[in-house]
């Protein structure tokens, strides 16, 4: 029996359609992640990036030293061999190798930075959804009103404002050390939640606001549009005809359907952000995965680049899976 046949046989033994769906999706996700790693390898080898052996050896190094380093890190082996060794280590031990530049285990480095990235991403996500939901509902229920126009204007402004620029503006206005109106936090003030929850919260307020601004406007617009369309459908009219309160109609019947398409987008965005919010982490000097990725790229540190790409891909794949499962919860018509 071939592997595909074996896999099919395993699948057929799973009785729950949802579980069968999840297993199938995870298998495909694994292949997708391998493809992503392969593409990263390809880009690293084909584009004119720096020579890691030379960087590791330094400027006055002898050719013998460079050659020895190349051998030590396996950089003298063919492309496909290096790829195979890497994939094997990842699959068997989830070993992401050692950084060429710092000689530190990449997995540990990423895991130590993950809480910072998760803090930034989750906090911003909660903030933008907390803004987008009520504002979206408000604009849907009062189309072409002042509030609707204000949301449209704000959305345009924040979507047009680059995150890095917005971050700098916030720092120069409100950071406690260099702000014109010193209020809170600043660059380099991040403290882990486990060390000091209050300082953690204060250090992340500005990054959350910066990251949430653009997303909140966009999501408010989308929620508003979807809800407006939903509220014009026959089943909503029927619900109203039954004498159900308007509040119940909006929340139970309108919003639930209007949120379905948002779930996919939100999951994708959150998954993407969990893999590292590069610009926000950079401008606010938060030691997360995003900043690690930037350093890795600057130092031509392939294992570190691979590690951050891998984590990013895993988060996105998982987020999409969660979104697909949530579909069934939000929309009873969806079956697996």
């Amino acid at each position, binding site marked *: 029996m071939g592997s595909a046949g074996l896999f099919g046989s395993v699948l057929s033994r799973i009785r729950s359609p949802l579980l069968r769906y999840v297993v199938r999706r995870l298998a495909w996700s694994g292949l997708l992640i391998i493809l992503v790693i392969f593409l990263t390898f390809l880009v690293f080898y084909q584009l004119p990036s*720096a*020579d890691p052996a030379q*960087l590791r050896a330094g*400027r*006055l190094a002898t050719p013998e*030293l460079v050659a*020895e380093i190349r051998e030590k890190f396996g950089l003298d082996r063919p492309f496909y061999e290096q790829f195979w060794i890497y994939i094997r280590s990842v699959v068997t031990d989830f070993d992401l190798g050692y950084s060429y530049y710092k000689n530190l285990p990449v997995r540990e480095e990423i895991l130590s930075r993950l809480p910072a990235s998760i803090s930034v991403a989750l906090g911003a996500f909660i903030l933008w959804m907390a803004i987008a939901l009520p504002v979206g509902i408000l604009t849907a229920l009062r189309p072409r009103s002042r509030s609707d126009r204000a949301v449209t204007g704000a959305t345009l402004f924040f979507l047009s404002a680059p995150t890095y620029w917005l971050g700098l503006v916030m720092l120069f206005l409100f950071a406690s050390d*260099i702000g014109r109106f010193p209020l809170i936090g600043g660059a380099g003030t991040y403290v882990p939640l486990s060390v000091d929850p209050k300082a953690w919260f204060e250090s992340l307020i500005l990054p959350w606001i910066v990251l949430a601004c653009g997303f909140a406007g966009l999501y408010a617009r989308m929620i508003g549009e979807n809800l407006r369309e939903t509220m014009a459908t026959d089943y909503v009219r029927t619900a109203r005809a039954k004498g159900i309160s308007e509040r119940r109609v909006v929340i139970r019947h309108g919003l639930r359907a209007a949120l379905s398409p948002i779930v996919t987008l939100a999951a994708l965005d959150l998954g993407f952000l969990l893999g590292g919010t590069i610009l926000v982490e950079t401008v606010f000097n938060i030691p997360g995965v995003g*900043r690690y990725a930037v350093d890795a790229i600057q130092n031509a540190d392939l294992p570190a680049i691979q590690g951050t790409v891998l984590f990013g891909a895993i988060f996105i794949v998982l987020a999409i899976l969660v979104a697909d499962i949530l579909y069934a919860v939000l929309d009873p018509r969806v079956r697996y």
Partner: protein
Amino acid sequence: MIFPRKRHAILAVAAMAGIALLVASSGTGAGEQRKKGGTLILLSAGDVDYVDPGQAYYSFSFQVLKPVHRALYTIPADVLTAVPDVAAGPPKLSNGGKTVTVKIRKGIRYSPPLNREVVAADVKYAIERAFALSLANSYAVAYFGVLAGSPAKPPKTPKPISGITTPDKYTIVFKLKRPNGAFVDALVMPMTSPVPKEYAAKYDNKTSTDYGFHQVATGPYMLANDSKGNVKGVGYTPGKLIKLVRNPNWDAKTDFRPAYLDGAEIREGFTDSTVASRTILNGGADFNADFGPPPAIIKQVLSTAKYKDNMYGWPLGTTYVGLNTKKAPFDNINVRRAATFVLDRNAMRLALGGAITGPIATHFIGPDFSGKGFEAAGGFEFNPFPSPNFTGSVAKAKAELRKAGYANGTYTGPAVTAVVSNIPTAINQGKILAASLAKIGIKVNLKAVTTDAMYTKFCGTPKNQPELCPSVGWLPDFKDPVTLLYVTFSGKFIPETGNVNWPQLDDPKITAAMEKAQLIGNAKARYTAWGKIDRMITLTAGAIPLQWTNTLNLVSDRVVVAKMKDVQGQVDLAYTSLK
């Protein structure tokens, strides 16, 4: 040492023109009482390369490690000339300069958890380990390869070197393959800092050493560690924080450093130089470590009275355009001379930030080598390719091209390629170079890549090297011209990869003169010889000198800015105090 990447990048984006260099006052008299205590805060964009003194080769790393690991000799911030540090006195040369004997100072002790006294065998091991692949030290062979018995091919782990012996507990003897004047100067390098073999060997014998994460210190400060000596996550969190604290075993009687501070914190990751600079000016931190202030901050500082003592500059290193002497058309000296004559070097400097970024260089040994080769090279007077205000001379360039066989003084050959760093002002400099060369018919195709790619894939790899490398430069490792000129212009050093002789200059007369100069034991005579070599190199026009660069530093109001400028252009933490 090549220009620090971050600092060079920042300097390259400066856009200030015609502003005089502000040099901070350094008028503190000898014996002045300064306040003791306090923690200094430095901000950095990136991280040190290593915290192991046997591996570090980056000016930022040297700044952090200098007050932690005492080398055999050091260049203190107040005299800027080498003095004995772990050594008890000057080195004694014998056997025609082939034997160097150094006595070790008694009473220096390692920090916890080791706590024992430093002995000569520790210096021997420190140098031996630097040759091992597990450390992959960048400069060991270049400066210490002259040691008898030193390995040509790096051993995987540290191995004894027969040319280093320790006849007694406090004496170390170096036997050289041949006399070498610069060897004594190189004893200031951090790889001569003692390392205890019985403690470090278990780390050094790994594929890649992690002694740096378990290190013991000899200086007034140490990287904070736990009771087992672990530094990682305590005193050093890569990419985040470096924390220096007092070394409890440091005895001021064995040292000349004042060491006023209780410690220092280096906060990393401040990649936005404007934010970091403002934090320093507002008193949220005290110094910039690996980046320079951006143009807007320079302008603000120079135009604001209250900031007059918050910035200072320090001359250091030389930048130049490398012309590939192995490729047409620059394999012809007259074409190279034409390019040197026609280049608008004033515009090149304006692209970097103008006068504040340093004087226009006319040869390679700069004014920071005053008394050590600068005057012998002709000082500010030696300018073999003059033009009005350094704006370039088309007439002289055309005359050179006619000598090269181009009848009407205009180049008619194929276009050439220039690979530049992809930072904005390096690209601008590339454009200025292209515009200058276009005046004599040389069309330049610009290719912008990352700084590291430029060095490792193009300009440092002879088979891929383009005709022009306009974004190169060199910093001295110590105060001997050999560190500026030898590996960068000697025909002996043109490896297949990692080449830093960017012109690929292979002039037998120059190479021979360099080999001869290295044998000169008398420092003054040696500097004079290197000065003459500098003139010879300049006249080949293999590289067009651009600037004797200034590094710019910001300092907060709470710091006493006196006697603390290090030879690498940065503050020496052991000489810094707070108000």
